[in-house]
């Protein structure tokens, strides 16, 4: 058991390198889209009980705007951009060049703008990972959902919990340089993805 822990610690370094490469590319894609400098405030990589993943975005009942994608190919997993509604509207303002209006729903136009944000962030992330590992990854079309955090995060968690009780989560907090909007980009790989990157790192 002790041996396993030691091995995991070493592998986490390689995993962290890989994730940071992906995140840097993803944030640069997002930055180009909103035409603002974006600072990564923190990147945390942890393996936590499922409940704690939902607490990262404010708890199960919190209303969030989630932009969700999963990916398939040589590795599988889930990507989520999670924002408080007011942040989502601020980001929309940057993309669409309009003053954000806070409401409880999104127009079709706003939905597709957020969906495009998911496309860009997701594909920039996946391209960096795929190039590094020499594999092919396919993103799903993004889903844009306003609802309780628990219900939205449950999409990814249900699949991961089929295999384990804990979830590997790579959680990135970012802010635009003018501090007008901050958000979260979360990566939840399936176990097979973590294994694959270990093999590749050897």
């Amino acid at each position, binding site marked *: 058991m002790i041996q396993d822990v030691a091995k995991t610690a070493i592998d986490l370094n390689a995993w962290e390198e890989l994730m940071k490469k992906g995140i840097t590319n993803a944030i640069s894609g997002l930055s180009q889209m909103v035409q603002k400098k974006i600072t990564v405030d923190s990147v945390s990589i942890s393996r936590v*009980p*499922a*409940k704690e993943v*939902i607490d990262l975005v404010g*708890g*199960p*009942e*919190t*209303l969030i705007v989630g932009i*969700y994608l999963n990916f398939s190919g040589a590795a599988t997993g889930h990507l989520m951009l999670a924002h408080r509604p007011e942040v989502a509207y601020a980001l929309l303002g940057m993309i669409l060049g309009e003053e954000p209006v806070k409401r*409880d729903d999104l127009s079709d136009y706003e939905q597709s703008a957020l969906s495009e944000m998911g496309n860009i962030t997701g594909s920039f992330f996946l391209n960096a990972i795929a190039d590094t590992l020499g594999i092919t990854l396919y993103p*799903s*079309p993004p*889903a844009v*959902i*306003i*609802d*309780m*955090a*628990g*219900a*939205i*995060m*449950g*999409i990814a*968690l*249900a699949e991961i*919990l*089929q295999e384990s*009780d804990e979830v590997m989560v790579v959680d990135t907090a970012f802010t635009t340089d003018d501090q007008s909007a901050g958000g979260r980009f979360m990566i939840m790989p399936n176990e097979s993805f973590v294994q694959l990157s270990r093999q590749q790192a050897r």
Partner: protein
Amino acid sequence: MTASIDVNISVGLGEIHVTRDPDAVLICYGLGSCVAVSAFDPVARIGAMAHIVLPASNNGANAMLPAKFADRGIPLTIEKMEKAGAQRSRLVIKIAGGAKMLHGVKAGSILDIGERNIAAVNEAMQKAGLEIHAQDIRGDWGRCLWLYIASGLTRVKTAEQRIIDL
């Protein structure tokens, strides 16, 4: 009589809570495809809630999250209630959740976990000889389910603050 203060107990993913504390309120927050199962014995005044995540386990027992799978979680919840003094024949069962949060997923397909959870909960209840008395299920929205032990009332709330008493 002294005034009592409700004690909110959050039942997380895969958890089971059984209580006979009259001030307790058992709550499953943020249900999407998950199904909350509420069971109440109105005579013994014992209540339970289970937060089911998936229909069936592929492999072995799971002590950490006892209600993760419907096929194990439902019988375990009933067993725990009986141990606490509840009688199976008196149990009032109500369920909420089982939504399809992703529009791209075909209804009834293997990826429609909400629908599969609902089916698995029904099957487990049938096996246990119990019927579901009320439900607020399906749709494409999140829910919370409350069970007030003092009254046995179960209440569903959606993200738009829509309230349904079951």
